[in-house]
């Protein structure tokens, strides 16, 4: 069958436990009519389809449920990820402070060109804000990444956040494709350089 989409982006949700990552994507409805089966076994990932500039984009989105301490999340978890949502809870100062640790963890373990975005999430309705919107914005500016506040329960900005992240990934891909398309010989040169570097590095370790 012909492929029915143009792009497939793999995204991760990262952040302390209890910040409402689960709310952002994984709601675990408390609805009394719902069976307990799904919430008992838990959700692995979701597939969502969005449209950007007339292109159909599939998003495959993972949560870190159950392994929220950043020390336990290493390279294997980030493999293949093209976008990462860094989520904190606006009522929880610690979760906000830990965003820096999460970014450090990403820099250490994830691919260098992974797109990032910070989400300040308000999981429940009571207003117990501990982190101002300005603080969130400042942090995002410091790292040069985008920021948004979401309310997962009210579905405010949640979809917009995913569309924004997807758009950034696509723009980056488009730029890369333009670059390689325009100067083919340049592309080959880059590969040569890379392989030289690799063999050089091997040589060093042997010594």
């Amino acid at each position, binding site marked *: 069958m012909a492929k029915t989409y143009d792009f497939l982006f793999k995204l991760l949700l990262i952040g302390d436990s209890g910040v409402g990552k689960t709310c952002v994507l*994984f709601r675990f409805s408390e609805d009394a009519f*719902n069976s*307990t089966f799904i919430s008992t*076994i838990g*959700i*692995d990932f979701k597939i969502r*389809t969005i449209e950007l500039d007339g292109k159909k984009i*599939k998003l495959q989105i993972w949560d870190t449920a159950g392994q929220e301490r950043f020390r336990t999340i290493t390279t294997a978890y980030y493999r293949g990820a093209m976008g990462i949502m860094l989520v904190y809870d606006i009522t929880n100062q610690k979760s906000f402070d830990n965003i820096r640790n999460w970014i450090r963890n990403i820099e250490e373990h994830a691919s260098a060109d992974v797109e990032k975005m910070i989400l300040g999430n308000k999981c429940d309705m009571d207003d117990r804000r501990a982190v101002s919107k300005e603080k969130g914005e400042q942090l995002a500016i410091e790292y040069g990444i985008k920021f948004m506040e979401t309310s997962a329960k009210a579905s405010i900005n949640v979809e917009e956040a995913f569309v924004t992240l997807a758009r950034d990934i696509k723009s980056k891909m488009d730029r890369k494709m333009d670059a390689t398309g325009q100067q083919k010989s340049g592309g080959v040169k880059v590969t040569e350089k890379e392989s030289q570097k690799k063999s050089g590095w091997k040589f060093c370790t042997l010594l």
Partner: protein
Amino acid sequence: MADKGDQAKVATPMDTDAAKDPNQVGGSGEAEPTRDMTELIKDGKNAKSIVCERCNSKILLPGVAEFVTKEIFLPHMKKKSEQQKATDGENLSEHWVVSDMMTFENVGFTNTVGTAKYLICADCEVGPVGWHDVTDKTKYFIALDRVQHK
């Protein structure tokens, strides 16, 4: 039937509810579809969109899934009584099947139980609406009884 193994993965008295359910297809399993399929199938594929029965979230577009009969045990989607155990369920035999998970518009996959992953609505998370065996990456089932056709 080749699927007995599938059913055994959910450790539960699986025949109790199915046996009591008057809507259940009789013991024959591979039985004729119990509903009129003429409106639902066009050119061998689903004629209508397949959406979540609770929140209308779009699961599959028209013309992408094939109809199959296969007995699959799915835990209940709705709470039917206070005594209901999480693993109580029923055997369902009418399904839509797609061969690539990226065919879905919106869907959620549970963690793996045995070799099974259960499919749920990506928006309201009601489910299971379908089933997938991780040892066969070419089959993803959505139970007709658990979704709406629009």
